[in-house]
């Protein structure tokens, strides 16, 4: 997974994270906590299912751009698988 943050007039920041570091049991627990604050209760099985699917998608769509946000002032964030 690659996260890129560009700000006009500033240095571009990017972070590459290996898939195993993003999709593992620890991150699923952290994600479950995060979505719980949004009122969604996710069980361990649900999270593992999500992670399994994300791993499959990573293999299938290598470098898929999941999110791209471009502000009018030039600020840009991209999250790529």
């Amino acid at each position: 997974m690659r996260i890129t943050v560009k700000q006009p007039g500033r240095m571009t920041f990017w972070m590459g994270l290996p898939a195993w570091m993003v999709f593992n049991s620890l991150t699923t627990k952290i994600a479950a906590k995060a979505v719980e604050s949004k009122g969604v209760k996710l069980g361990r099985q649900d999270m593992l299912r999500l992670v399994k699917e994300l791993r499959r998608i990573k293999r299938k769509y290598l470098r898929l751009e999941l999110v791209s946000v471009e502000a009018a002032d030039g600020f840009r964030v991209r999250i790529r698988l």
Partner: protein
Amino acid sequence: METTIGKRIALLRRKAGYTQDELAEKLNVSPQAVSKWENDISCPDIMLLSPLAELLGITVDELLNDRAKPETALVPEAERKSLDDMLFKVIVNSPQGDKIRVNLPMPLVRIGLEIGLKIPQVANSEHLGDALKGIDVQQILLMVEKGVIGKLVEVESAAGDIVEVYVE
């Protein structure tokens, strides 16, 4: 009515919310080159066709061909792609010029629905969540299973954000 490739590029560029300068920057060409394409003085280099089509949200075939493709289509059962090969795309353009693009593989959307996630909960944005609140993703999934693809939703929020949902 016949349209030229230049006119199609100009129309699709405006629709995608890019200026000539922005499109030129994304393709690493000069704004003058984009202007020449749009005025049918020159054509994009063959190596640029794929990234250009991608930026304009169409295929290279649609970019080169004059035949206008309907935004929403009902695909016959024999020609349908598997749900596993489809992408759920959300495009948000704000009146201030902010752009948000989200591409989610359909299996992920399906799992999200099965475990009870809803778009506004995922969106985590007051305006975006508000604009997407009325969208029934379950119904979209049903439409896709029946063979409807393309632009399935277009909503304008009270704040003026235009939200479009495509399944391709």
